[in-house]
């Protein structure tokens, strides 16, 4: 990476694996459970969070020297809420179809603790460029987990990926269903999302023993 120094590059790559916001920091779990029943929703949420966290981190970083420490949390909340609402309004005016797809996520983005977590832990103490990279990195790390969970839940729960049947037709009994395979309805329930996240955490810590806490 010629563009980024090694330290800057780490800001992006660390959250993807060894400092992943979901599996290591255990942030943003609620949205990871709520919207991963299908792959498309996971992807849309991932992109939205990349956008909001990237810009939000920059805004907070630029304001970091003037924000009164006593009310910093509420200031962060206002910044992210204002940002999300403005984006939502612009989409409603110029890309109405897209805005309808996103409307469910607006509330979830505002309350996503990854966003507040990164504002508080990183943007308040670092410059705008570094904060931007940190925001993108963490949102990517979040998005990767969302997409993995969404992939398995949609595949085993509904037998589809991005809404396209990949295992055959469960009602007409074609493809895999012809030999007795059944969709697992439990996969599309939130508890299974937690279990899938748990399995990811398990695999990750088996591979990298340094991540295991005492």
């Amino acid at each position: 990476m010629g563009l980024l120094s090694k330290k800057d590059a780490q800001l992006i790559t660390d959250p993807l694996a060894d400092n992943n916001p979901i599996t290591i920091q255990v942030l943003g779990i609620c949205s990871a459970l709520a919207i991963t029943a299908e792959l498309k929703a996971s992807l849309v949420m991932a992109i939205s969070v990349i956008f909001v966290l990237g810009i939000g981190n920059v805004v907070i970083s630029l304001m970091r020297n003037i924000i009164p420490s006593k009310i910093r949390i509420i200031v962060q909340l206002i910044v992210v809420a204002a940002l999300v609402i403005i984006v939502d309004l612009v989409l409603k005016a110029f890309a109405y179809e897209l805005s309808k797809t996103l409307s469910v996520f607006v509330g979830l983005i505002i309350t996503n603790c990854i966003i507040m977590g990164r504002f508080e832990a990183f943007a308040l103490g670092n410059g705008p460029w570094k904060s931007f990279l940190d925001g993108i990195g963490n949102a990517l790390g979040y998005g990767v987990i969302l997409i993995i969970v969404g992939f398995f839940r949609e595949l085993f729960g509904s037998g589809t990926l991005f809404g396209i049947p990949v295992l055959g037709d469960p009602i007409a009994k074609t493809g895999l269903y012809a030999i007795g395979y059944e969709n697992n309805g439990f996969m599309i329930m939130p508890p299974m999302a937690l279990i899938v996240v748990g399995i990811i955490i398990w695999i990750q810590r088996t591979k990298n023993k340094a991540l295991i806490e005492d």
Partner: protein
Amino acid sequence: MENRTDKNSYTILFAIGMVLVVGALLAFAASYLKPNIDENKRLEKQQNILYAMGVNENDESNANFVSTADAPELFKKYIKKQLVIQGTSVTEDDQAYLIDVKKEQANAKSGIERKLPLFVGEKDGKTFYIAPIRGKGLWDAIWAYVAMDKDMVVQGVFFDHKGETAGLGANINKRFFMDDFIGEDLKDNGVFKGIAVAKGNADPLNNDKSDNEVDAIAGATITGNGVAAMIKSELKLYVPHFETLKN
């Protein structure tokens, strides 16, 4: 370490300033973009109404509206009459599709007689009566446009929602759910009954059109119940008008 940003006076001034700036920004954005947003919503209503009566661009498995560019023209072509039913009076109003159902529901609660819009569409020699209805899902509002024939047999529906769970309740606007309603009779032996969204009704392919039931979506029980409740309570209000159509 004491610095200027820790002072109470600074904190209060900052809070006031922030509220003013953000408030002004949001107010400006909202009012500047409002005409565009309203226009989008208006076209969406036309698209939804047309969708319910089968004027759409559905492909094999996905629900697609007619394009926003064509919507106004097609709306004029297919929707012959827009009625407003208020008690026993029925008037025509070509802006009836803009009636806010939510507002009318609130009016009804406070004792003002509710305006019930009904759109009369014609396609291939068939007459459709399309009613806009609104109810509650799991998280937020759900609404629908239901196209019926004069005997209250469903000819097409369009469901939508504000914030149902993605992949579960949000699927009420997918064809696999909406298409099940087509052909279902809202009445049972001539008496209005509605359509239940039923679990385990032993009819997943929905071959039985007279059982007043469609197959539910797994994992979306409350949204499904909301759909059934909305159909039952809202379409019931239209029964007197459909009775007059028989004569």
